[in-house]
Structures are given as C-alpha cells and as structure tokens.
C-alpha cells in the first residue's frame, strides 16, 4: 500500500442547522504523511474532519478524493479508500475484541459472501500491528480506555484504507496512552504509507507527531505547513488567544509551546 490517494477540501463550507462552522476551506492532505488539524474549541476542526469523511454534508464547495467529489463516489467504494475513527464510537455490549475488529471488514464483504481467510488475516494483522493480539477473545467491556482505543484503531486498520481520518483519538486517555496511540499511528504511517489526518487538542503533541499542521480559527485555516514553520508565538496568540513562548522540544526538536499565563511567571525570562 502506498499513500497515493489525495484527499482535499475545495472551498469547503459546512455546519449545523444553517450555522456555518467551516467557512470556505481549501486544503490538500499530503499523501503518505501525517497531518494534524489544531485550533481552539469550536474553531471548526472536528466539523472539517467530519465533512471530509462525509459524516456531514458540505454546504458549499466539496471534499474531493483523487479529483472526484466524495459525494459522487458510492459510499461503500469510498469505504475501501477512506477510513474514519469517530470521536465516540459505540461498542456493542459483550462483543469479543476480534469480532469488533472484524466489523472493519464490512466494506470488503458482499451480501451473500461469508467470512473468508483474507478477513481473518486482515483482523490478525490489525491486532498484531496495534499490539492487542492477546486480547483477541476478551470482551470489549473488560478493557481499559487505552486498550479500547487500540481496538478501534485496529478496526480501522482491518478496513485496510489508504487514508485514515481520526477525530481526537487521544481524548479521554492519560498522557502515557496518548503518546502510545500517536506512536502507533506513526508506525502505521511509516510501515504502510497510510495517509493520516487527525484532530488533536494538544498543540505540543501535534507539533511533535505531525508532518504537516493545519491551524484553524473561526472556520478558516490560518496557517499550514511543517510544525517548525507554523508554530510561532504569533500564531499561538492568533489561534488560541494565548500568550506563549515557543522553544525547541528537547526530545524531538520540534516546537514546544510554553504558555505564559498570569501566575507562576518568574521575571527575566521573557523573550
């Protein structure tokens, strides 16, 4: 698999019940790379991701895959190329992990074709990649939050799409599990060439894990590019309304945002 598919937004607008949340956005997700959309609450980043993945319709413009509007592509065919991990997927009570991961095979199956060896391979591969092979027969209800998130990612992997969108895949996880999930997605991107785009809350993790950042405010993209080019004190102020310093992350040498705040700021350190 190679990241040869190109998903883009062309003057894309969308919103809810007449209210425009995403306003004329143009973007191209770099194929085979990890893109992260960042921005303050209610800036439209989740809505943008939802429109790109056809969960909500565009009110103007279009989400375009390989030159074709996604609304023109039969949804089942689209599901072979474009995967999505929503923010709050629902696990049926008592279902076994490998059965749930197997639901990712839905677009590959025909009405009267039963489960095949290929499906077993895809599920086993997804479990292995996400490091949960030993949980295969456990009921989903017994797992921790971090393990569950791995199961959902495994389900998206079993779907075998070249493009994978994730809506805040690290919400509700503690820091260790956030890093674990992002490492896992990076593995995926590197080993399979999967094009990944996700919404993240944490600007520092975004700056570390993104090849390409999109910074949003009020439904517009303010800046996009490599994190070191995008993440500046001026941009952080513009996007989050936050006075901050940006230093080099001692571990990854990516930009690290240090918020200033009103308290606990010692004198003589301002840049």
């Amino acid at each position, binding site marked *: 698999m190679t990241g040869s598919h190109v998903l883009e937004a062309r003057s894309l607008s969308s919103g809810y019940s007449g209210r425009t949340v995403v306003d004329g956005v143009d973007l191209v997700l770099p194929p085979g790379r990890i893109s992260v959309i960042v921005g303050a609450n209610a800036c439209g980043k989740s809505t943008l991701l939802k429109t790109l993945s056809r969960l909500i319709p565009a009110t103007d413009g279009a989400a375009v895959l390989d030159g074709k509007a996604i609304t023109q592509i039969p949804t089942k065919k689209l599901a072979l190329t474009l*995967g999505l*991990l929503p923010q*709050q997927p*629902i696990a049926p009570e008592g279902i076994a992990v490998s059965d749930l991961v197997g639901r990712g095979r839905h677009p590959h199956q025909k009405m009267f074709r039963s489960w095949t060896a290929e499906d077993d391979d895809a599920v086993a591969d997804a479990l292995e990649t996400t490091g949960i092979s030993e949980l295969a027969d456990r009921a989903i209800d017994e797992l921790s939050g971090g393990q569950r998130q791995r199961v959902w990612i495994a389900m998206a992997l079993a779907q075998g799409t070249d493009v994978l969108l994730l809506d805040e895949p690290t919400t509700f996880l503690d820091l260790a599990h956030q890093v674990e999930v992002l490492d896992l997605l990076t593995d995926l991107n590197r080993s399979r060439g999967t094009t990944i785009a996700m919404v993240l809350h944490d600007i520092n993790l975004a700056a570390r894990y993104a090849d390409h950042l999109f910074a949003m405010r009020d439904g517009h993209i303010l800046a996009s590019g490599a994190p070191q080019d995008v993440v500046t004190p001026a941009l952080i102020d513009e996007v989050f309304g936050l006075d901050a310093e940006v230093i080099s992350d001692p571990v990854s040498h990516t930009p690290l945002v240090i918020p200033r705040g009103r308290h606990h700021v010692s004198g003589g350190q301002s840049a």
Partner: protein
Amino acid sequence: MSGATAVRTGRTRRARRRRIGIAALAALLVVLAAGMLMLGKTVYPIDDVVRVIIGQDVPGASFTVGTLRIPRLAAGALAGIAFGIAGSTFQTLLRNPLASPDVIGITSGASAAAVLSLVVLHWSAAATTALALAVGILTAVVIYAAARGGESTGGRLILIGIGVGAMMNAVVQFLVQRAAEWDVSVAMRWLTGSLNGVRLEDLGPLAIAAVVLVPIVMVLSRDLRALELGDASATALGVRVDRARVLLIVAAVALACFATATTGPIAFVAFLSGPIAARIVGAGGSPVIPAALVGACLVLLADLVGQFGFDTAFPVGVITGIVGAPYLIFLLIRTSRLGGSS
C-alpha cells in the same frame, strides 16, 4: 500465519456456541409446538398429532388438533417470530434495550387501530391489518418527531414512547368498554395479547408479512451490525445509514403491527427476546434468527403455562407480562442510575 489461526480459532469457537444455542432453541421450539398440539382437554399422543398434520382423518383429533390447536400454534409461533425480530431490531438500532416497540408504544398504537377496526368498524382481517400497520408507523413517526433534536434523543424517545403507549392503551380500554364489555376475551386480546379463538384464515396477513419481511431484515442485519457501532462508524464502513435505518425501522414496525393485528400486543415478547437470545448465543452475531426463535418459544411456553399452569386459563399476554415487567423495572432502575440518557 499464527495470528490468523488464533483469530480463526476464537471466531470458530464463538460460532459453535452460537450454532449450539440456535439448535437448542430450535429443539425447544419443536418440543413446545408438540406440547401445543398434544395438550388440552383431551390429550392426544404424538402419532395422532402427526397423522392429523399429514392429512389423515383421526376421529376427534382432526377437529381439535386441526381446527383449534394448529391455528393457535401457528399464530403463537408467527407472532413470537415477528415480535422477537421487531424487538431485537429496534433495540440494536436504537442501542438501548428499553427501545422495543412494545415498550415505546408502537404495538399499543397498532392494537388501538385493530380494536377500532374489528370491534367498532367490523372491518375484515386484511383491512384491520392495514389500519394497524398505518397507525403503528404513524405512532413511530410521532414518537420520533417528538423526541428528536437536542441531547439524549434516545432517553427522551423512550419516555415519550412509554407515554404514547399509555395513551394508546387508554384508547383500547375505551373502545373495548364501549363495544365489547360483555366479551372479556376480546378485551384481553387487545390489551395484553391472546391466542384464544384464533382461526387459520386470520393468519394470512401475518404469514405473508413474515415470509416477506424476515428475509429483508436478515439481509439488512449486516448493515444493522455496523449501525450498532454508531452512525459515524457505520458511515465510515460504507453503510448508507439513512436508507438502512428507514428500511429496518419500517420492516420492524410492520412485523410488530402485523403480529399485533392478529394476536394483540403480546406483552414484552419483543422486549425480552433480543436480550435472552444474546445470553444464549453470545454477543457479536446477527440477532435476527436467535431472537425469532426466542420470541416463538416465549409465546408458546407462556401460552402453555397460561392454559394449563393454573386453575383458571390465562391469555398468553398475562403470563409474558408477569415475566417481562420485572425485567423492565430492572432496566429502568439501571438506566436512571446511569443518568437516564444514552
């Protein structure tokens, strides 16, 4: 690939449990069916029953079994299948065990229509079924429209449905009181469901509905299993969410309404079948066939208990009601502890 082998082993083990569960339910259904045909004021041995079924003339048994007990069995089994599938489809689609058509007032609506048609207007069985279906769908639409929008649509839908159901039951009581106060069995049928006095010729609409709708729901059950993961996941998996949901709801409402027009709203069969089936066959597979079998077994078992378990014969719905009510209370308590939403 050892990972794939492990996945296959687990999947095969769960599939075997499911098959054994389904086989056990089917066997139980056969036993209950035999009981329905053999037992009564006169007990006929199984070979007499078989001879009647294959068309031989057996003095006494031909009338009792052929004219009374076979229609009762067929009505019970068909209604159980229809209620079981309708209930489990609703519960899976709305992701809430409380959201079955008998709890949220849809079968009560169909029942009110049926009693209006039969007892007041004296319409035919076919016209009665049509009216029950129309009112059942209308009830579903009204509940959905009243509940939609804002947070916690699911919880509100159930509360509104329970209210609509109570209202429809009041309509049934009103009509029955006015038109048939002398006829307790008619009243019981439309209030709780009963197999008393069912004739073979009344079963046409329900039989046709079962033959047409059950395969449709089975085909759609693949989409249903994706919808169970939430609308977003289902869309991502390539399901045409709105179309699949409308088809499934219409099919499930129709099954519940056809059954209600024939036997009355047999209490809680739709509500109980899915959860019992999941206990028996395990989670993860399609709920359609297990829920259908459990529904049929529940109705037949309850009818046998109702007929022979006490000094007085009770209609089937009284028995299923006694079994179902505690489970409903249990779920309501659990739901309110969890915050009433979802």
